[in-house]
């Protein structure tokens, strides 16, 4: 009879102990309870869906690139894959001739690479938005994984001409309208005076020009997949249109011409 009296309180205590020490922690304990596992699973499902979207976007973007090769060429002309210094020499010489100027010097130099431009940085995100589920601890920047940096190489061209003022102005304009990126580091225009002359219409122009090129991407870093472009369905065409409007002088290809000689110390005619 006495044992029977103790059963009820003992059961109540067992229920409370089980609920507090086992059931509730199994439901939620801040790290690996069912509630947290469910949240992580939902997050993984979301990431997986995002990845499926990215795969679909990559298909669309790749199809766009294939279908618009000619239109996209403006971008590859503006920032080519290679140095193409032979093109720079030939085209600057042609532009000077077209402007009625005589060329004194065209020298091409490779410039030291600057610090690479970082890829677009994403804002810090909460653990729930971190790319890899197991990395969900404190607040972490999204770009914790290595990404490819945009590192253009630069080419410096020392270019000197002489002629009249009008021709120099035309040349400057033509260089700026050439469809390859260029920047005037310096432009020096001076009169060519003899000792007796006070005024001269003959001018010399020395300019230091900067061109750039970007080597083709050979491999992707793990973090590159998080680049915002893979979440987009199309490229931003605005810049292509802008280049097309402002840069309307084509950089011509160099023709190989005749080659091969029996005597390399004599000029081939």
């Amino acid at each position, binding site marked *: 009879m006495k044992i029977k009296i103790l059963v009820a309180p003992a059961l109540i205590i067992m229920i409370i102990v*089980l609920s507090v020490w086992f059931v509730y922690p199994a439901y939620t304990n801040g790290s690996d309870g069912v509630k947290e596992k469910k949240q992580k699973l939902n997050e*993984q499902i979301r990431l997986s869906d995002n990845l499926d979207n990215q795969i679909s976007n990559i298909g669309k973007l790749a199809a766009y*690139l294939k279908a618009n090769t000619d239109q996209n060429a403006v971008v590859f002309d503006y920032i080519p894959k290679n140095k193409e210094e032979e093109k720079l020499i030939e085209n600057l010489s042609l532009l000077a001739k077209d402007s009625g100027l005589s060329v004194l010097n065209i020298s091409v130099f490779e410039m030291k690479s600057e610090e690479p*431009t970082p890829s677009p940085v994403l804002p810090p995100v909460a653990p729930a938005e971190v790319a890899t589920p197991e990395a969900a601890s404190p607040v972490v920047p999204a770009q914790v994984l290595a990404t490819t940096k945009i590192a253009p190489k630069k080419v410096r061209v020392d270019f000197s001409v002489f002629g009249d003022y009008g021709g120099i102005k035309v040349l400057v304009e033509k260089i700026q309208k050439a469809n390859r*990126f260029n920047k005037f580091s310096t432009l020096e*225009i001076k009169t060519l005076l003899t000792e007796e002359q006070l005024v001269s219409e003959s001018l010399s122009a020395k300019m230091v020009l900067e061109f750039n090129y*970007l080597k083709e991407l050979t491999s992707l870093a793990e973090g590159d997949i998080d*680049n915002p472009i893979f979440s987009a369905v199309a490229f931003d065409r605005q810049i292509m249109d802008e280049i097309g409007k402002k840069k309307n002088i084509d950089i011509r290809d160099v023709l190989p011409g005749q080659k091969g000689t029996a005597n390399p110390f004599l000029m081939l005619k």
Partner: protein
Amino acid sequence: MVNINLVTDGKNRESIGSGVTGLFVLLLLVLGLYAFLVFYGKSLDKKADSLKLDYDSKRSSLVVGDSKKILDFQNRLTLAKESMTKERDMKQDIGKVEEALAAGVYLNGYVYDDATKSIALDCYSDSYESVARQILSFKSSDYFLSVLAGETKLDTKSSRVSFPIILTIK
């Protein structure tokens, strides 16, 4: 003498008995719930593991293939956007100097330096009044941020004044 009856009646016994049964049932429910949570947690782990494997394999497959070409093109677009904003209109700079040149003044040299965004002019004039007018003319132009005149020199042979001016562009 008052009688005290210590024997419980049948109804009370039954109610105690059903209360204990209820507690047993509740205990079983709690145990069942715990077992459910443990097994459900394990099944969630399995699902998460398989999703992660799938995610990782899909993600690594993205690193090869067309994504390389897409990112290469996008990098060029990003760089082109930056570069276009950096390009200065040199013709406009020259044009603004032409516009501001005062009568009686001409140039012997024009040097643009992109690092300092400045134009150094080597000028000649027929008089000091022209020098003053020239400085004023550049100062009154909105295109130039600052105008810095240097040392003037009078060439007695040619009766002309040479003077430098450094213009900083906005």
